[in-house]
């Protein structure tokens, strides 16, 4: 008895340890390295910053003083502050559009006949079978002045002049919404599908019209899914680099590009690291808020 229990505990502990080790090795350690660089001073040499610790003298000795200068400099510079705000707003708007498009789709799939749900979900996930980059390039072909979209609209006689979409902010939104939509639909579907249809019947029995039933039953109960989908879309969208670079007109002051400029153009690793740390900090705040919201919602869901 006791031996079997000990074995179970050991196995459970191993299973629990694994993700922690993973997070430690592939998230926390790299982050600490980046954070350490962000406190260092830039220099011309290998590496291009003054390491905070000196490993060569046998043992670890603090080799220079850590300073917050890089951060102070960032926040004094309206250019980088603006990049934050712009990235947050692009990510926020994209997330909202994803939610507006994704919610009806998730709802439709969840309400479809069970036999059809599988194939419909499959269609949502299907784009992942092609490389992300190829799909973004395909959008370039669709959106450009003489691309598919403009040829179609001109062929139909709807427009005379091609719509300039590629290399504008609009193209960035299209790209981000397109790329991240499945990440919004899947968690939404997961919560919507679990909802008991009897709840809606009860609402109808109590005299609620469908729209009313949606607002007071379906929508509140799906909040955990909305929160999850929003997080999964919003967080990567803030740091998005590839889509603005390929589809945008380079007029968009986004964090990813600003970071690349500092890192590669002026080879200022400490300032680039400070930007990255600040970006993470800027994400932790909304993330923490949403997390608290989600925790508050969960008991409600169980109660229902």
């Amino acid at each position, binding site marked *: 008895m006791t031996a079997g229990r000990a074995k179970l505990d050991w196995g459970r502990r191993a299973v629990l340890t694994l993700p922690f080790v993973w997070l430690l090795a592939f998230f926390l350690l790299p982050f600490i390295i980046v954070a350490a660089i962000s406190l260092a001073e830039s220099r011309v040499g*290998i*590496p291009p910053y003054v390491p905070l610790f000196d490993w060569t003298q046998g043992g670890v000795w603090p080799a220079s003083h850590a300073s917050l200068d890089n951060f102070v400099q960032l926040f004094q510079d309206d250019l980088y502050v603006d990049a934050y705000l712009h990235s947050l707003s692009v990510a926020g708007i994209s997330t909202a559009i994803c939610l507006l498009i994704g919610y009806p789709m998730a709802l439709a799939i969840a309400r479809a006949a069970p036999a059809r749900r599988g194939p419909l979900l499959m269609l949502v996930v299907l784009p992942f079978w092609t490389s992300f980059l190829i799909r973004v390039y395909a959008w370039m072909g669709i959106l450009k002045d*003489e691309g598919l979209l403009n040829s179609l609209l001109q062929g139909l006689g709807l427009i005379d002049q091609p719509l300039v979409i590629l*290399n504008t902010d609009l193209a960035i939104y299209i790209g981000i919404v397109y790329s991240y939509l499945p990440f919004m639909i899947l968690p939404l579907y997961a919560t919507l599908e679990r909802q008991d249809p009897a709840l809606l019947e009860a609402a109808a029995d109590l005299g609620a019209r469908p729209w009313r039933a949606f607002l007071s039953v379906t929508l509140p109960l799906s909040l955990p899914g909305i929160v999850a989908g929003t997080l999964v879309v919003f967080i990567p969208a803030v740091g998005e680099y*590839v889509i603005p670079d390929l589809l945008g007109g380079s007029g968009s002051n986004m964090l990813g590009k600003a970071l690349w*400029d500092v890192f590669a*153009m*002026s080879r200022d*690793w400490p300032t680039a690291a400070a930007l990255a740390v600040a970006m993470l900090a800027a994400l932790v705040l909304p993330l923490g808020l949403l997390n608290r919201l989600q925790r508050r919602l969960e008991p409600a869901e169980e109660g229902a």
Partner: protein
Amino acid sequence: MSVRLFAHMALTLLLLFAATAARADDEKVVNVYNWSDYVAKDTLEKFTRETGIKVRYDTYGDNEILDAKLMTGQSGYDVVFPSATPFFAQQIKAGIYRPLDRSKIPNAKGVDGDVMTSLTRADPGNLYGLPYMMSATGLGYNVDAINRRMPNAPVDSWRMLFDPAVVSRFKSCGVTLLDTPTEVVPAMLTFMGRDPLEQTPAALDTAMHALAPLRANYRYLNSDKYRSDLASGDTCLAHGYIGDLVQVRARARESKAANKPNIAIVIPKEGAMVNIDVMAIPADAPHPDAAHAFINFLLRPDIIADITNAVGYANAVNASLQYISPEIKNDPVIYPPADIKARLFSALPPAPPGFDRQRTRAWTKFRTDRQ
């Protein structure tokens, strides 16, 4: 840039292992890290056949990738090909390279003296690098689209890009700039009749002030995208590397599309920057002898002529001219005639401390059109 970045991130990991493994073996191998599509088909094979040294060959698409790898240290590479401006100059200052042993590179004496002299700005005393391939920065344009909008456009001048009255005419068909202050700022200074090599806050300010009101005329700033867009006719005027533009012109010619663009290339008459990619040996190169042998081999007139014939870039070995195909030798944008050549400049000196940061900031501001 980004596309390559992703591919190279993955590659970097692999190479890290390869390089660590490589350090252990003998001198019979050389680890080369070069730009993609930058040797002739049989160059490496010939080298191995003649010397018995195996070549481990990896490629990159951006100076930034090479730089990041070298700056971390212990890249494991023996020969690398950084661009003189601004990378090679800064890397020398950081102490990345090992001085070349000229006694092991006898072919170096065949290198053009003027090119060596201009390289001294980046590499004082020519201690660390020898020139590999060179290409000016200039303009590529869609002849029909430009003629339609401005019949006698000053196509041989930077006015195409920097004169507000001229460039605004082409806004509708798409004008693009390289996303690199070290190309655009010197070009603007040349256009304004100032010293293009000047790297002072005052010169930077002057150039950026002149550029700011022009920003709305440029569809985007990018150092990669312009190639496919110009070749397909989606843009009509591109600031670009002549080596790239030559490939764009060829691709447009070979295109089977009915309305394929007719691309012309010019080196502006006011003068232009020449990019020199140099061969250099990292200080911690595991096989320095093999590296010297490889550089010496690449500088052999017949070998480097093969490479020029294959990639369409000019080289600095004068004796190689006899082996170079006439259409490349006589192309005025690859081997410019004397009058143009006299106005070319190359190799900016390394930026003074703090200037880099200032320039990057001004550039980000310009790119995102914030005045």
